């Protein structure tokens, strides 16, 4: 085992510790590789493939967030083939997912000249906003399935295992077991999932309400307990007038 691995990235000689990923090695040489699903504090799963690079001698493009450096490796991070792959990934994402609140991905689209109209026939993934708890909402129309939320809910932080992938193929989505509302799952509402979401598919409820134009005072009178109380009051007030209709 050597102490240091020698490789070239975009023609620059780089010396790094063994076991390092290409992504980290490139960063250490000041070369930035774009990523979506990768997060410094989550386990990398090479899901989005935006970080692919060309490695001399490799048949396919290699996901740099998980691929480790090796001696004599020659890596190219911005070849035409790489750029086309990234552009296509971004175009497919833009076609199927609402990226309106993902500024980083939008910036990549501009950088790589990705057209969001590239696949006009394609179906948009749509699901209604899930507002089933007082802490945060889930808008899976904005979800790019990066898996970070699932990771932090599991071994990357919380060991709670409240959410995971459900469905297959195009129907794949993040969800709870049997689609139960979050309070009825093992969820502890730590919000680590909200913190690592790259597209604002997960959002604190008060932020969501504020963005919809509610004033802070309106929001603070919107607790579920208050709503329930108000509902009961209204029901009670209604009862005599309608002759005890239940």
């Amino acid at each position, binding site marked *: 085992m050597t102490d240091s691995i020698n490789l070239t990235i975009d023609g620059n000689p780089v010396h790094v510790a063994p076991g390092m990923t290409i992504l980290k090695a490139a960063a250490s040489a000041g070369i930035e590789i774009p990523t979506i699903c990768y997060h410094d504090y989550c386990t990398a799963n090479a899901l989005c493939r935006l970080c692919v690079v060309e490695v001399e001698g490799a048949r396919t493009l290699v996901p740099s967030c998980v691929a480790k450096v090796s001696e004599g490796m020659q890596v190219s991070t911005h070849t035409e083939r790489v750029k086309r792959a990234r552009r296509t990934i971004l175009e497919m994402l833009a076609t199927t997912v609402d990226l309106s609140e993902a500024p980083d991905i939008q910036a990549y689209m501009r950088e790589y000249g990705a057209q969001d109209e590239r696949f006009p026939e394609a179906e948009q993934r749509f699901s209604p906003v899930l507002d089933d708890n007082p802490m945060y909402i889930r808008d899976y129309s904005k979800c790019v399935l990066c898996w970070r939320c699932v990771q932090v809910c599991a071994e990357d932080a919380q060991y709670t295992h409240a959410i995971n992938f459900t469905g297959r193929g195009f129907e794949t989505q993040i969800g709870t077991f049997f689609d139960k509302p979050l309070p009825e799952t093992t969820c502890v509402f*730590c919000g680590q999932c909200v913190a690592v979401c790259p597209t604002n598919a997960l959002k604190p409820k008060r932020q969501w309400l504020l963005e919809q134009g509610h004033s802070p005072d309106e929001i*603070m009178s919107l607790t579920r307990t208050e709503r329930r109380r108000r509902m009961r009051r209204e029901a009670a007030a209604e009862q005599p007038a309608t002759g005890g209709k239940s």
Partner: protein
Amino acid sequence: MTLNDRVVSTTCPFCGVGCTLQLHMQDDFIYRVTSPHDSVVNHGNLCVKGRFGYDFVYNQKRVTTPLIRRTPQKPGQRSQAFDLSEWREATWDEALDYIADRQMEIYRRDGAHAMAVFCCAKATNEDNYLIEKLFRSLFRTNHVDHCTRLCHAASVVALQMAVGSSAMSNTAAEVALNDVFIVTGSNTSENHPIIALQMKAAIQKNGAKLIVVDPRRVEMVNYATLWLPEKPGSDVSVFSAMAHVILKEKLYNQAFIDERTENFAAFAASMEKFTPEYAESVSGVDRNLIVEAARLYGNAKNAAIYWSLGIPEHTHGTANALALINLALLTGNIGRPGTGLNPLRGQNNVQGASDMGAMPWHYPGYQRVDNEDNARKFEQAWNIEPGGLNRQLGLTTTEIVSSIGPGGVQALYIMGENPMMSEPDLNHTRHKFEQLEFLVAQDIFINESGAFADVFLPATSWAEKDGTFTNTDRRVQRVRQAIQPRGQARPDWKILCDLAKRLEARLGRPNSAYWDYQHPSDIMREIGSVVPEYRGITYPRIEREGIQVPSWDEDHPGTPYLFAGTFPRGRGKFHPLDDAHMAEMPDEDYPLILTTGRVLEHWHGGTLTRHSWLDDLFPEALMEINPADAARLNVAEGSPVRVTSRRGSIVLRARVTQKTTPGVVFIPFHFHEAAANLLTQDVIDPQAKIPEYKASAVRVAPASESELVNPEARQVRGRY
């Protein structure tokens, strides 16, 4: 609509972990909380309270104007006023003058003994330093205490006796270095959630082995190698039996015992009777489990003990904590990274409030008030005539409450605490509060205690003021003002200075103890001048990252773990122990043991979290009962039950669960609708004066829905 994103970095106001929070705001409305992934304490992780529980700041029930009671309150007829119509709004000048006049009247008539204060483990170090300074220097009383009495008082006393310190010996994150660790009397995953994450990672990723000793099957048991399900209150016998096995099998660290400890022989002799068989008969724990646990801990390279309130909150809490300390001294698992004696402190700043002398026997820095040199030192620091400060030990919280009445405490000042929820035997506490001649509450909501007050002073929340908190592993961290004070609310330190100046003027003493601080950083400089451990703490030094005290001077980097070469008292002292029993054993009339505690979503007396959307997640008190007991008593899941002790009775819903062992029921103490502390008793540990919250004899019987205070408050949860 795109929001503005103004970000202020601060420290979480809930538990003692001390997570870094970044508050994201539009105007003065916090709409999102994040934490940097390189934050030193919590590595970006937060729990539900830190992430979402800050909204109490904006709750519309918050009081933001000084209030004076419309009907003058008289001792014996004092009543609670929750409704604003029973108060009239006052100016700050009027409210403070009124307080100063009334306090002076009582002080002049009855003297120092009549004056008492409850400080606040939620307030900053600066606030707590000032309030104890105010009462000690102006009213010359040491009746200064706070809720530490009700949580880790016995741990502090035991640590003082055995090693001469009173805090976690090691950094919480060092759990990553443990190969074996004991968690006892702590529901870590609910009450110190971020430390629990680090514990889980240590087990799952590093292969550390966990021993849980607890009468409840708390979540950490899912990660444990061994679970010792003891009967409440039997800690001394379980841990002493472990020591017995370690002694018999020679698993102890002779070199450490020789070099660093004293009183070993007497201790070893006292362990003779604690055979595993004997401990089994007392605690109900299988003798083989005790032997296995002793071998696991005794053979470990780096072993640590983490405990919380299940250890100290007993009439023999000091003995419980000493049993743990004995184990660490016996095996030499102290004074190195990844070892230690680690009482997990509850409140965000209970360590700091204790360090600041918010206690009846100590000036700031644990300097005894009955020591002449200490008194002289503080007389000089506070510009007081020689002999002016009171040399007598003051009363503790529970003693202050008991002493209320003629000849005892007449005027009480409460800063941010809620003894009417947190003291034991609340019917007794209520009776005592009714006898007060004068009561001031300084808080953000009118809670059960503040409702008794004559004057209510609206303080700012943690988001509206600057200061510092000291977390459970002794890290002093910045609290930063993020938003403007709501309404006319003022930061505690300013209120205290304004009141102190008024009192000084009325006292007519020649010297001032000094109250002209411009900023909390000035107060911290004064703290550093009287508390050697805080000498190195200045605001510029902790701007980016907190420093762990002791920090002896401005070049000292802080102390991640204590006792590397020596103990503050010199040698660590073994303490011989004898059996210890609960004050109240179950009997025919009251056959079950009630143990109290907390849940993830709520905080203590509920002043903050019951005014937050957190309450939607956990809206009602639930009593946990084992399926075996439930079947016998005809109690179904979710059905109402009446729980009765010799002191009181409450009705709440039952949660039938294996989480509690047969013979034991558990009730969280957050809910005024079914206040668990109506049932508990105010018998106290003789050394630490801490009440026995963790064991009261009760009986349980089915009740009807109509007896519930709020039968509609229900939330189905998957994790309970």
